[in-house]
């Protein structure tokens, strides 16, 4: 005989369900996290909740580079220490963190918020490519570094942008050397990334 399954109390079930939607969190980890949060002091739990709300409420996309920011234009785009003639084009905000960690890149960025993925229906109009073109047309850009991941979708995206930009007569380079095929830029260590930046090649 089987007896009826009694689920966790409703508020806990709800938290488990929400946590389970996070990337890399399965149902078991979600349950463990939920009960952990239940035991944490009220102030800590509130701080976490507020941080989650703030990240949605108090951030926007920088109107210039499309990175996530709490002030528009973002700190990098409004910095006078950065060289605005070089734009490094990346897939997502996390890639900027990785490149900033090297401390060697002095130019500015542009975040595409994705890469071409035709099988998922993600085409050029779903990426921040128009915004990149507009930036280049109005500013005095000398070089664009295409720093999408070294896999087929990243390469296809770089090739597509290269084709669009090539009539504009600026220097187009590809940050790829030293980065193994199939890997994600966000996981590359500083040394590898610095080599890749210094060894970028005309594309």
């Amino acid at each position: 005989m089987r007896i009826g399954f009694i689920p966790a109390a409703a508020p806990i079930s709800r938290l488990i369900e929400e946590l389970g939607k996070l990337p890399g969190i399965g149902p078991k980890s979600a349950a463990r996290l939920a009960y952990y949060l239940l035991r944490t002091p009220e102030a800590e739990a509130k701080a976490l909740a507020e941080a989650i709300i703030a990240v949605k409420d108090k951030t926007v996309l920088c109107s210039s580079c499309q990175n996530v920011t709490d002030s528009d234009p973002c700190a990098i785009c409004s910095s006078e220490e950065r060289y605005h003639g070089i734009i490094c084009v990346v897939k997502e905000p996390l890639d900027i963190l990785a490149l900033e960690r090297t401390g060697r890149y002095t130019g500015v960025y542009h975040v595409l918020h994705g890469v071409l993925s035709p099988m998922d229906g993600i085409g050029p109009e779903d990426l921040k490519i128009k915004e990149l073109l507009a930036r280049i047309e109005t500013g005095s850009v000398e070089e664009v570094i295409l720093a999408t991941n070294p896999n087929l979708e990243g390469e296809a995206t770089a090739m597509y942008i290269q084709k669009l930009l090539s009539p504009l007569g600026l220097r187009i380079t590809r940050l790829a050397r030293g980065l193994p095929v199939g890997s994600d830029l966000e996981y590359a260590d500083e040394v590898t990334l610095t080599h890749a930046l210094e060894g970028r090649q005309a594309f």
Partner: protein
Amino acid sequence: MYKTEAIVLKRINLGEADNIITLYTPNFGKIRAVAKGVRRPKSKLGGHLDLLTQSALLLAQGQNLDIITQAQSIESFLTLKSDIKRISCAFYIAELVDQFTAEHVENYPIYRLLHENLLWLCEARSCELVLRHFELQLLSHLGYQPELHQCLSCKSQLAPERNLFSASSGGVLCSACAGNEPTARSISVDALKVMRFLLSNDPTSANRLQMSRELSQEVEQLIREYVRYLLEREVKSLEFMNHLR
């Protein structure tokens, strides 16, 4: 543990740095497997499991999905990957295989077709020719080969004149029988010949075929409609492929 060759059709991120990889194999048909840590630069798997790469794999049985423990690329189809237009065609080919096949259904001819046509796409004069050949052959290996020799309704031999192609009936109807099929559309004698030719030839022979622009478009439209009818949806990668034309 088991070994297999495979062509990578799709990659989806899983957790921190893993991927769920959709593979097409000679003996197990389509399978999905997990590649752990594959997005980290130090991974030994990464470069061997990129999209549209043919690799020799070693897999371990997992609880849910099997786990790829070793991978060594055999053919990366690099020539096609240096051209954005050919890449867009290869995505379309991969999506068709993924959409039309179920997991764990062995179909060696489809594996061979996929391999041969990706190789052909590297050098082909015309990408369109590769795609039409691929579509027709794939449908044929799946049991959807369109009837192109006799009328589906009255079974009479098709006369060398304009006939009608019906996606819902899976082939051609003579003009006398077409009245009952309002969705059937006109098919020229040449389009019929091209489709028969592509169905009965391998890439090497098919590569010699010459088509006018109009004929090529007619054949494309007919097959597209048939594919859409069978899948009951649009193929997503069509949009990007058309965007590049």
